[in-house]
């Protein structure tokens, strides 16, 4: 007899099942790789799903040019070590127009560099499905997202026209002009992601662990100044603080938390007793109520 399956075993098996269903049903899928902890788990599960073969799809990173340097280094090392086919896409129109997170509101910047960048890349390569690491526990509108989530022409999401998903059956038959987003981690929580990283002994970007970093306090959030592109405002000073990140993104828009959790055990302990939800650290989400839902309708992942 084998051991009874734990909830992590069940989640893993479900994610592998989803990867295989998508790979079998879509003609040209891609894995949207955003370097964070969720992407790390996503990639690991993709490798498990097709072992001993390699995942039958490339990785895509939509680079805004404002990611932490540690993230880019981690991305390139991962792709090299695991011998993965990595596509990096930058929205050149956005760069040419000088759109950055310093002078533009987060919503404009995100729309141009992330949402439009993603749409460009999907169209350019003709991908009909993209795997993402989104979880239903992240945010209220995500809680209603399907595992196979369809986008009409222009990559728009209509929450009222979602396909019902019954039992384990996943229907990947595309209508004309449609593409799909596939979320193998739908039923994982933040805790599960960390538990799994520990169980599988996965490497993550060092920014998740507490260390002394140059921080600036702005509007109640702690920002880590990753390079000198962000000018200090009147009265602001750079202070070394022991901080880490719960979620990673563009550094001027990602708040750090003060923490002593310098290794995986510490992070897991902190996460299991966390008192603040993780998206609190993402400045783009609190623009207004329903912000995420609107962004998704416009094609944000």
């Amino acid at each position, binding site marked *: *007899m*084998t051991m*009874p*399956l*734990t*909830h*992590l*075993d*069940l989640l*893993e*098996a479900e994610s*592998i*099942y989803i990867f*295989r*269903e998508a*790979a*079998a049903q879509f003609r040209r899928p891609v894995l949207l790789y955003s370097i964070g902890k969720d992407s790390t788990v996503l990639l690991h599960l993709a*490798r*498990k*799903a*097709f*072992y*001993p*073969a390699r995942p039958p799809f490339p990785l895509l990173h939509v680079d805004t040019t404002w990611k932490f340097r540690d993230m880019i280094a981690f991305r390139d090392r991962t792709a090299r070590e695991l011998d993965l086919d990595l596509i990096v896409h930058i929205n050149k129109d956005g760069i040419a127009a000088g759109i950055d997170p310093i002078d533009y509101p987060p919503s404009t910047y995100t729309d141009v560099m992330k949402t439009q960048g993603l749409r460009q890349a999907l169209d350019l390569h003709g991908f009909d499905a993209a795997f993402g690491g989104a979880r*239903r*526990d992240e*945010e*209220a*509108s*995500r*809680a*209603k997202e399907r595992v196979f989530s369809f986008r009409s022409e222009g990559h728009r999401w209509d*929450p009222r026209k979602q*396909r*019902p*998903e*019954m*039992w*384990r*059956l996943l*229907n990947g*038959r*595309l*209508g004309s002009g*449609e593409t799909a987003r596939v979320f193998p981690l739908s*039923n994982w*929580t933040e*805790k599960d992601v960390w*538990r799994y990283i520990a169980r599988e002994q996965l490497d993550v970007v060092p920014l998740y662990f507490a260390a002394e970093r140059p921080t600036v306090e702005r509007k109640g959030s702690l920002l880590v100044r990753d390079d000198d592109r962000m000018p200090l405002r009147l009265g602001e000073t750079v202070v070394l603080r022991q901080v880490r990140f719960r979620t990673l993104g563009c550094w001027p828009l990602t708040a750090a938390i003060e923490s002593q959790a310098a290794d995986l055990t510490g992070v*897991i302990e902190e996460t*299991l*007793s966390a*008192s*603040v*939800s993780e998206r*609190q650290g993402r400045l783009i989400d609190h623009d207004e*109520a*329903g912000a995420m*839902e*609107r962004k998704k309708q416009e094609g944000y992942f």
Partner: protein
Amino acid sequence: MTALAEVLDVADRPGPLPRRPSLVRAPATASPQHLAGSLHVLTCGSVDDGKSTLIGRLLWDAGALHTDQRQTLQRSAKTAAGTPDFSLLVDGLAAEREQGITIDIAWRYFDTSARRLVIIDSPGHEQYTRNMATGASHADVAILLVDARTGVKVQTRRHAAILGLMGVARVVLAVNKMDLADWSEARFRDIEAEFLTLAQRFGFSDAVTIPVSAVLGDNIAKRSTAMRWYAGPLLLEHLQQIPARQTKAGGDFRFPVQMVVRAGQDFRGLAGTIASGDIGIGYEVVDALSGARARVRRIVTMGRDLDHADAGRAVVLQLDTDIDVSRGAVLAAPDRMPTVVRSLDARLVWLSDQPFSPSRGYLLRTATDLVPVASIDIRAHLDLASLAERPSSTCAANDIALASIELGRRAVAELFSHQRETGSFVLIDAVTGASVAGGVVTAANSHESKRAQDAFQLTRSLLKQGVGADLANDAASEEELRRRANEVAILLRGAGVAVQLEDQWARGRIDAATVWLSVLMALSFGFVLAIVFGAL
């Protein structure tokens, strides 16, 4: 109760009156590293009976909320009872917040000492019955909510019927808003009696009735002092003791093949998740459709090979001989084979806004197979108000219908009551790709009907000559040819031609008779295509 109380920090309410809702709770106890499994809990019931509030209360009482969520809730508008509006936690979409209703199922996750609880919140309005059915298909147990003041309503009955249809056999009737019904035991017992009748009718093997007040928290995680007459389980306590989701380890071995995994020159494996039963090295397996047999040589997962694997595991099976199976096949043990059918009877819940049309092309997805449908006869509707069956030939959104479905080729299908995985299906509109209905198999028929015998036979050799002339002779091309065969069958059906795909693709040498037959068919096929394109 003790273990639960420890984890949830549940204390009996101190004083009797005045009744004050307890809002301040100790922070969540750190949950354990590994949980023994998960339980999927569906919440349903008529609109306004307080589902979203109940879930919000469950999350709140179980300490599953983060501080920022608690603060948002504390700041938000209060309910008439002066408690936070818990429903704000659950109603996620802007349209829902505006209308104050829940239009789509929402998923919530929280951990107790032993297991993960997954709450699936489903909508109460009648026009969203399909969402409710969708939620029920994922549930191990359902909490059916009623308002103590109004009791069992038509919509309660509908939801009970849908639970029965979807095979949810564990149901908790939560009689809510007891605070607004004078905490009356008599009222509760009346509702309980009515529910037990429904439970019998729909075959709920485990039916429990609990009087609660979601707004005040009575009998959710803490025992009500206002209803001392109730000695049964608390809601959270009850959810805690229901056996965790476990696929039947003792059932018949079923392995729906998701895809073929090839690595290097030598490795060819079949990827899939064990739907039921178990498998070990050396076990004999058989492909139900072709009857081809082989033994398991390796059970591969990344990291290590397994000697043995139970239901629920995602693995790659390498067999000792390369039998020709690919996506859609179901492997089984030779002495416990699944039924292979040509037609089936089913109960359907119609999901699409587009009503059923006999002239549209449909596909049936079951396990990992995608089968063209030859015809569908809608025979009757289930009237959810009276629970009677009424003859009918139409089917539209939210209808529950009895139907006979003729398949365009042989496929594995089993009784839903026997095998969930191979006994449930989704109907897909071949053109739009939409999932138009979900269904469960109530009868599986292996004989060929008169209509199937008269149908145009689409053979492999025929397709290979024209539609598949560009394809090579390898396995990937073979899958592509099958895909094209399905599409051609759909087109022909759309043009009103009854069509059957050949049972087994012809292999190897083709004898003279087959060639002659093919020529004849090619002629008629060309004729049919002319009609199709003429019609477009």
